[in-house]
């Protein structure tokens, strides 16, 4: 209440001030036109149209989407002081700029408040593949891998793909949805007869300990044939259902090592000279117990989610399909490429392993009875029972109560298929599969004033925002009671949802797209410059190629970033923590990569930082640094674009058609030991390139101390110098490699640049300093806009400008705390959908 009162006062204050200034056409003639004439049209007019922006043809009409966009752009660059450019002679006085921005802002507000010509973006959009798979999981109670069978969702760097514009639908897709729906129902509804249980067990003894690893041991390398590392083959298993893998294990730990990360994977055999075998991890454990106290570890999964090896045809008869359970030791302390030193690395002893499937505490399993529930009605009045089953399922699948007409329609489908499919289970599978290809399931829930209420829509909006999935029972109940829009209820729900495990899906999905991280996985790492970054096969046909089937430091880097953002939200930390922080989110392999001591095990945790680590915030994350490098050298332009798009929230236009490429790109420069800074300077000498690059390049230069694999590297080889090559024998291990790098990297990297419209900053520390001091509000606004845009599944327009303005003001008063920001977004009228209605 108090807050609103204040806002009103502020507004009145504004109005009073504005009263003096001319409005509408008068203001346009007396303020805007003279300002543009003297400051802008020389470059943005009929003769020149730099950046494809012209102002000479504007009039006082701000309405209409195109005009709104133009005026908003003008407003933003004037406010930020980006235009007129610094080098312009006779830049306008601050008061002049203030006068014109005030006029534009008040005119914009008028247009927005009148709600004229607002183009309403379609709210109906299909679920993304990510949302689809999560929704099915929560609907049936267990995860099934389904997206592999769907066409890939489109993606665009720095954009969210959950908008109506991206989420198109075609027949191929519906076809796949139908296949998936049948697969889902085949897993969710079981036949009444209790199935045969498949069991496999294998034991290992420790023979021949005199040389190499024991026959019951799994190590990082040097695993012997017939040892548990070669896995346990399965020839018989059910088509669907839960399975359990139990194994008795203990650790052999060299001095100083605290434990061994053990992973169990299931799928095709990996003991081949092939990188194309398909496997999926079942689970991870951290083994610390010694061989004197062996312990039993248990892993569970759904059998249909794991790849299988099709049986071969032998003399016209197909052999049974098979799968292999393979335990792996994922220990990595940064020395994995040091050659085969298996006896000084930690190992896991496995005495026996068991597989059992299907496992269910009760039969039929809970996920079955949730749909085909126990009821005397089933015998007494089967039709009424079927209707009830349909009603319950549809009400959850459609995320709002089913109507009678809908139940009728699906009941007709049931009646149609029942004579042929005979049993209730089979007929219900087919019937409910069609529920899963109905538009009410596949598309986001939108209030229609009849069947779907506003709070139904709000419940779904919340859950797809914060969980990437359907609302749970509690949310649906609140929606049915119509209480979700109440402020206290909303606050409580958002906090509850963010504390839930499912919110990790949201943070991962959001962060991957917001920071455009996916490309880091495919940057080709130059293994001559960075021979130790990836883990290479040390012997055999595939010697020197990347080791498949085990997570790399690259994979961990994605968790470093997404887990870090999740931790910030959990702590309700300030937006400032995105730029700098006193902790990082690391596990042992990553810590070894960055040179942070004292981290054991592969589980991620918050690690306190010291200044000499040169970490903290997002800007030094390997995920971003690698993705925006060439695999050989840093790429300051990519990094500059990233900083401006992802952090500062600017829209950086792609290079126009027909511009010459920066021919000496960074990769080559590193190989030839030239400095990129000079190359860029040369590039900027061309005027056509300079217009954009002068505002871009300086942002990338302070990142130059971080190399193409995301490590701090303040020295590079001397310009034009011949450096001695990497010699595997002399420089093979970690210490030798470090000495080698010291011997060739002798020149200090220059990472000083003057940021556009700002001071000179030196290196990462200088950049962070500047961002925290001068750009915190911009960064916060960017995060807020992105969260909001992701939450409502559409791009923000000028119409949302003033709501965002209010939100950011409130957030500023609260030190831009992230969790509070998300709560405020959910309470905002743009999110709850009342804006403009």
């Amino acid at each position: 209440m108090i807050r609103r009162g204040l806002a009103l006062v502020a507004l009145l204050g504004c109005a009073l001030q504005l009263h003096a200034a001319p409005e509408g056409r008068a203001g346009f003639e007396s303020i805007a036109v003279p300002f543009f004439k003297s400051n802008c049209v020389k470059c943005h007019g009929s003769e020149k149209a730099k950046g494809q922006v012209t102002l000479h043809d504007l009039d006082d009409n701000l309405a209409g989407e195109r005009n709104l966009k133009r005026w908003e752009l003008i407003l933003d660059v004037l406010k930020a002081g980006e235009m007129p450019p610094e080098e312009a002679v006779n830049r306008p006085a601050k008061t002049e700029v203030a006068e014109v921005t005030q006029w534009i802002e008040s005119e914009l507000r008028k247009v927005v408040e009148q709600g004229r010509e607002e183009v309403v973006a379609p709210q109906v959009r299909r679920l993304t593949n990510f949302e689809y798979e999560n929704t099915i999981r929560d609907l049936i109670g267990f995860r099934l891998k389904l997206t592999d069978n769907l066409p890939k969702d489109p993606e665009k760097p720095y954009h969210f793909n959950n908008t109506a514009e991206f989420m198109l639908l075609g027949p191929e897709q519906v076809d796949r949805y139908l296949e998936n729906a049948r697969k889902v129902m085949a897993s969710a509804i079981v036949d009444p007869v209790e199935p045969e249980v498949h069991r496999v067990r294998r034991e290992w003894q420790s023979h021949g300990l005199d040389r190499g690893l024991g026959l019951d041991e799994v190590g990082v390398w040097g695993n012997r044939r017939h040892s548990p590392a070669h896995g346990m083959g399965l020839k018989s298993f059910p088509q669907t259902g839960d399975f359990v893998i139990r194994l008795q294990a203990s650790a052999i730990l060299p001095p100083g090592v605290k434990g061994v990360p053990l992973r169990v994977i299931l799928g095709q055999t990996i003991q081949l000279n092939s990188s194309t075998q398909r496997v999926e991890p079942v689970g991870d454990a951290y083994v610390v117990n010694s061989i004197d106290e062996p312990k039993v570890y248990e892993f569970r999964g759904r059998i249909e989610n794991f790849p299988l090896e099709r049986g071969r045809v032998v003399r016209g008869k197909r052999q049974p399909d098979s799968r292999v359970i393979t335990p792996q030791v994922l220990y990595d302390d940064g020395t994995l490429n040091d050659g085969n030193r298996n006896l000084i690395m930690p190992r896991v002893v496995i005495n026996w392993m068991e597989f059992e499937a299907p496992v269910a505490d009760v039969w039929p399993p809970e996920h079955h009875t949730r749909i085909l529930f126990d009821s005397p009605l089933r015998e007494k009045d089967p039709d009424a029972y079927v209707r009830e089953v349909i009603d319950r399922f549809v009400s959850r699948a459609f995320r709002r109560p089913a109507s009678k007409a809908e139940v009728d329609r699906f009941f007709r489908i049931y009646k149609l298929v029942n004579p042929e499919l005979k049993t209730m289970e089979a007929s219900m599978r087919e019937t409910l599969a069609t529920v899963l290809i109905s538009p009410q399931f596949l598309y986001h829930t939108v209030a229609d004033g009849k069947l779907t209420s506003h709070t139904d829509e709000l419940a779904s909006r919340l859950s797809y925002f914060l969980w990437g999935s359907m609302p749970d029972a509690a949310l649906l109940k609140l929606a049915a009671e119509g209480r979700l829009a109440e402020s206290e209820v909303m606050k409580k729900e958002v906090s509850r949802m963010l504390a839930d495990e499912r919110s990790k899906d949201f943070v991962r999905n959001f962060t991957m797209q917001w920071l455009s991280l996916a490309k880091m996985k495919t940057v080709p790492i130059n293994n001559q410059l960075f021979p130790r970054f990836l883990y290479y096969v040390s012997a055999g046909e595939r010697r020197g190629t990347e080791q498949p089937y085990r997570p790399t430091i690259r994979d961990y880097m994605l968790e470093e970033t997404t887990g870090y953002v999740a931790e910030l939200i959990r702590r309700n930390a300030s937006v400032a923590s995105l730029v700098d922080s006193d902790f990082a989110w690391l596990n042992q392999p990553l810590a070894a990569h960055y040179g942070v001591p004292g981290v054991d095990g592969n589980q991620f945790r918050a690690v306190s930082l010291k200044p000499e680590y040169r970490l903290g915030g997002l800007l030094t994350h390997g995920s971003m640094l690698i993705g925006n490098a060439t695999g050989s050298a840093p790429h300051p332009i990519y990094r500059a674009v990233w900083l401006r798009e992802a952090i500062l929230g600017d829209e950086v236009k792609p290079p126009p058609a027909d511009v010459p490429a920066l021919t000496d790109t960074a990769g080559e420069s590193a190989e030839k030991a030239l400095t990129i800074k000079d190359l860029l300077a040369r590039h900027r000498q061309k005027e056509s390139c300079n217009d954009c690059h002068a505002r871009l390049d300086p942002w990338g230069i302070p990142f130059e101390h971080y190399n193409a694999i995301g490590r701090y590297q303040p020295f590079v080889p001397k310009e034009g110098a011949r450096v001695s090559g990497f010699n595997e024998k002399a420089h093979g291990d970690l210490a030798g490699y470090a000495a080698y790098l010291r011997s060739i990297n002798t020149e200090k990297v220059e990472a000083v640049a003057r940021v556009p419209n700002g001071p000179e900053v030196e290196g990462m520390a200088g950049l962070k300093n500047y961002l925290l001091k001068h750009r915190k509000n911009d960064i916060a606004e960017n995060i807020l806009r992105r969260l909001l845009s992701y939450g409502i599944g559409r791009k923000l327009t000028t119409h949302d400008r003033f709501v965002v303005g209010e939100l950011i003001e409130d957030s500023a008063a609260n030190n831009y705390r992230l969790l509070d920001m998300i709560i405020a977004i959910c309470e905002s009228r743009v999110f709850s959908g009342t804006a403009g209605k």
Partner: protein
Amino acid sequence: MKPKTWHLNRREMLKGGGVALALPFLNGMSWAAPSRVLPKRMLVSYFSYGAYMPNGPAGIPNPDKPHHDWSWWPCRDAGPLSFNQSSKPFESLKDYVSYYRGLDHAGGWALGGHSSGDVFATGADMVGSQKTNSISIDQVAANVHGHKTRFASMVLGTEGGTGSYGRSKTLSHRGPGRPIPSMNKPQEIFNRLFKPYAGNGVEQVRAGLKREASILDLLMDQSRSLKNRLGREDQGKIEEYLESIRALEHRVERTSRWTHQPLPDVDTKGLNLSVSHGDPEEYIRCMYDLVYLAFQTDTTRFASLMLESENSSNSELWNYATYVLGYKGATHDIAHKRPADYSGQWDRWRAEQHAYFLQRLKDTPEAEGNMLDRTVVLWGSAHPHASHSTKNYPIHLAGGNRLGLTHGQLHSFEGEKKVPLANLFVSMLHAVDVPVKSFADSTGSMPEALA
């Protein structure tokens, strides 16, 4: 949709039920009988980032300099073909290939160097008048002759899906705003093409299809009632869904019709369907093999194959040149740096794969000629050497010698002589018996291509 009348009839028959439904239904529809006429086929394939043309980055070689040995263009001057290092793989196919220089889609000019691949098969003006993509050449043909085969067309790519505006992962579009997702997993493509019943018996499949048709009808009801409850902007989205369901109904009809034709017996020898991007040559050849098998068994006659896309930084395609040539950098970097040693090698590698496919067609006899004689194959990119340029595409046309096309020449359309690439598309369509008057921005046909 067009076939409304028989659509309804067939539905009635399906509802009539049971076993009796099948045979009279088929015989009554004479157009479903297998045609005795030899098939006419077409493949459109695309590679990204342009090609190496050191003596003429804008796509036209410098007439004053000797021809470069590693230029993508086989020779400098228009006229009979002679082959340099880069085009060597096509030497043995001399009478089956032609090069076209100076052609492009005006619609792609403004799209920018990272996006003009979007309109390679459509010629749409996505920036100016149309805003969205439009129907692609393979779909124009499929709409006319697609009913003659089990599948109207086949849409393949190396990355899969549709991609998005300016970042397409497919060449094929059903119409404005309706991209067709490309398939990129060999095993899946194979199963869909040749094992569509997933191991079920034909009777079982027919029963399933019958059920499906009825279910789709009910779904249509369901969706229409939803549509009516929504605002106008949102109705468009549901219409997208309705159209998809309608298309599925067609597919169900089509599939049930084809259950009366035996599935082709496909020789899978030497076909490694579990191949991954880690081995580009195996993978690309496998994709070409699948097109070949689909053509050979007359499973479809029209295919598109997006061999590469411009925006592949999230996929393994980004590393192709690294895997193939040991190039230290992203494949895309070759387009920007144009390193003298790798650029030509990379083009040559691409040419080898394409020539492999053409050769396979040529080595397969068909009637008095071979399969290549009756298959029109387009291969090209939407950029010349200068990778941000969207003009003067490298264009390579092959096959169709018995469909009225002639080969063995380099045709040049520089300066005054410039015509739209769509003119060539018109002639390609004519060759496969699709009597269009125009395509996209065409101004006529391409007499140079005709015998």
